[in-house]
């Protein structure tokens, strides 16, 4: 019979539960553990960020869709990493978030029939308008405030945002 393994098994519920508790206790948003051929990545989402999952990949375990508060486990055997819901930037580049200062509804396009203000890959300057936030019937233009390239669009069109909600992530140049 198979002997009891002494290595922590990434599929082991106890291990995952322990990691979740540690994340909550120490207020960690992301934990990414590698051991040999196995890897666990747990990420605690903020309030309904709704960034779209880019689908499954070659790994045998499909990545579940991210949920609200509890961490969304992405268990990946082997070293194949799933396509990025993370930015495709090299891990050492610090991404700059564009955060909301208003409370209201996020709109990615100037009008429904137009193209979005920016997409992943768009170049931005500090005064580039990146989106609208509608608050109390007024459409406020949000500018990038930074020079660089959009690495990630973090919110969906029509989503409610609050103070501090991350709207975009930018690779600074």
């Amino acid at each position, binding site marked *: 019979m198979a002997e009891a393994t002494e290595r922590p098994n990434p599929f082991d519920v106890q291990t995952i539960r322990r990691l979740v508790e540690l994340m909550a206790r120490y207020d960690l948003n992301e934990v990414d553990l590698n051991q040999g051929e196995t890897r666990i990545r747990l990420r605690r989402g903020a309030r309904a960020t709704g960034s779209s999952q880019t689908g499954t990949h070659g790994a045998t375990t499909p990545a579940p869709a991210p949920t609200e508060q509890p961490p969304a486990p992405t268990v990946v055997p082997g070293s194949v990493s799933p396509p990025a819901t993370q930015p495709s930037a090299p891990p050492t580049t610090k991404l700059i978030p564009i955060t909301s*200062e*208003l*409370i*209201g*509804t996020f709109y990615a396009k100037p009008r429904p029939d137009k193209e979005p203000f920016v997409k992943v890959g768009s170049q931005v300057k500090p005064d580039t308008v990146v989106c609208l936030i509608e*608050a*109390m019937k007024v459409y406020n233009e949000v500018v990038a405030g930074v020079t660089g390239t959009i690495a990630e669009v973090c919110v969906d069109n029509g989503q*409610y945002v*609050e*103070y*501090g*909600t991350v709207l975009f992530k930018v690779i600074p140049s």
Partner: protein
Amino acid sequence: MFQRILVANRGEIALRIIRACRDLGIESVAIYSQADRDAPYLALADERICIGPPPATESYLRVPQIISAAEISNADAIHPGYGFLSENPDFAYKCRLSNIEFIGPPVEAMRALGNKDQARKLARSVGVPVVPGSDGLIRSDEEALRFARQAGYPVLIKAAAGGGGRGIRVAHNDAELLSGLQTAQAEAEAAFKDGSVYLEKYLDRPRHIEVQILADQHGNAIHLWERECSMQRRRQKLVEESPAPNLPDDVRQAICEAAVRLVKAANYQNAGTCEFLVDQDNRFYFIEVNARIQVEHPVTELVTGVDLVREQIRIAAGEPLRFTQEQIRHQGSAIECRINSEDPANDFRPSPGKITRWLPPGGPGVRLDTHACAGYVVPPYYDSLVAKLLVHQPTRAESIATMRRALAEFVIEGIKTTIPIHQQIMQTPEFIEGRVDTTFIERCMLPADKARRLSAG
């Protein structure tokens, strides 16, 4: 009845309002600044929305942010609590424009009573005595001097747009009056955007006695008896109680009736408090109306059995008052001690920080209203109120005994609190005998501490 109420406040009063909503089966939306993101009471709300960075001026005082939060969360009413925007007519008006019910008085009543000089005029017009004062706003130095010489010094210079003990200066002679006027006007302009001031005679060692009222949208108004709040330091209340000790019944009755007369004349609605000063001959004088729920409202809840915040919500939803005046009975004696994160040994310096140990009191006759707990970090950006410790017993002597017990049980470590000064108050003969006035703490309790500290070297 409302489906969802946005709580436009923080700390213990936010928790209080959330609890009232839950009692009524109404959903609540809590707002928070980044400094309050770990506040324990947020988890009790049905939704929570971050509205800004820590400073109050960029979060809890930002009208557009709060109204936007109400819109995206589909709140149909906003409860403003006390402080912050609770007496801001512009905010109440904007709520109305956005079709969100403001749980408080109508904008017009708020404006009428928010100007303290106007409120005095209104009081006089319905036969409510006011503190002898200038006939309206002071428009010249000559006018001020004339009043002061006729009424006699000392006089108080008061900002018309002030309130809650703010915007007040004392003048003991002509020189102080003239320089005080300049400073008071400048300060009022800066703090309240309105530099107008009026004068009042400075009463000799008055008691502060206030009356809780409730008025509905159907013309009914009742009082819920009085509270005494004479134990103050720098015009901030430390201890409140009901009934006011050693107050003749006919005086009590007259003050309460005057309060109802005044709020009816102002077409007031919802909860409010009329504040009076009572001199050593038991003559009473109106000073101002607080057009909001107050910190010390639980004192009245304990002696009348009425849940004031729940009644606020009902009144705002259009329901008529559920009580007649005759049904409001006063039972027993209730005392509240405000436990602040301040260091009484060091001039009440604020003491924010992490609470490392928290053992709250309990048992019969004890009520504790607090948002704090072990591990809670008191932020430095807001007022220092950490907990309201209340007791209710059949007699005042028993209330004081229970308060002593409760204060002794209450352990808070990690921050300094005002528990020691409350313990001292509960042992002070003048307080026990009900012979205090608004100058008592500063006159008799604090200088002694200073002398003791100095002599101890």
